């Protein structure tokens, strides 16, 4: 169990680094969402199921949605 925890923790940090170092905005937003999902797996292994549900629904789902909606608003003013 601790080995699995270590692997998932490494994935969380690696996707966070990917979100910060990449040049493309879309990849950055998606990598932040993926980091939130790996974080929710960490919360489950730490015996916190309520927090894991909330992080998966809000931190990974709704945050990515609002980032893309705001990006779309910016791009539509850009082209029009």
């Amino acid at each position, binding site marked *: 169990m601790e080995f699995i925890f270590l692997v998932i923790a490494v994935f969380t940090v690696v996707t966070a680094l990917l979100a910060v170092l990449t040049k493309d905005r879309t990849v950055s937003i998606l990598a932040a969402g993926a980091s939130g999902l790996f974080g929710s797996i960490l919360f489950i292994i730490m015996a916190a199921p309520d927090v894991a549900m*909330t992080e998966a*629904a809000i931190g990974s789902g709704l945050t990515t949605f609002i980032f893309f909606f705001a990006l779309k608003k910016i791009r539509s003013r850009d082209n029009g």
Partner: protein
Amino acid sequence: MVKKGFTLLMLGGLGSILLKFVLDFKEKLALPEVSAHYVQNGPAELGAPNVVTSVVVTYRGLDTLGEVTILFAAAAVVGLLLHLNQNKVENRTEGSELLKTGSALLFPLIILFGTYVFLNGHLTPGGGFQGGAIIASALVLSILASPNRKIGHTALGILESLSGVSYVILGLAGALLTANGFLNNRILPLGEYGTLFSAGLIPVIYSIIGLKVGSELSSVVIGLKGESDEEAHQ
């Protein structure tokens, strides 16, 4: 060059403080006193198997009231700022056939699942915040499939305000009727342990919080997406 040095200085400073914190960290072996009281006396006093729910709703109910207020303020400011810059938006392309059929099938199921999650918040992991977020995701799916549909903003606004007001009224009723404090949950009878209608006022309060959070997050997300042309003309 100065900027880079300054950045490294800030990161280094924060890193050294946190490093000392990490090095002194030892895992705990027993619960602290307050949490031990909540875990041992919570289910017997309040009748809810989920200890986190009883902490959020009853033992630390005032923090939940503050959080509901902050969410309301953030949603109000987002609505205000987006409304000031309301430009006319061109007609959007509809979703494909697959997306429309899939969302028509999934939308009632997701709403049902979200309602189940916040109704059973005191028995299984879950509760008002999680159920509200699931309901907001269902609304986002429906607006992705047919972007030209009007969403009743007034209906969402009325639902949200009613839920907020009834949460405060229930809390004051606990303070006035039983003389045991704000958001006391023994106004309703405790019932049998582990059934749906147990734990006094906790399912009612969590359902109200679930409706409030769901309608609030929906209006924030849909407001960021923008309105269609027919709404701007009327």
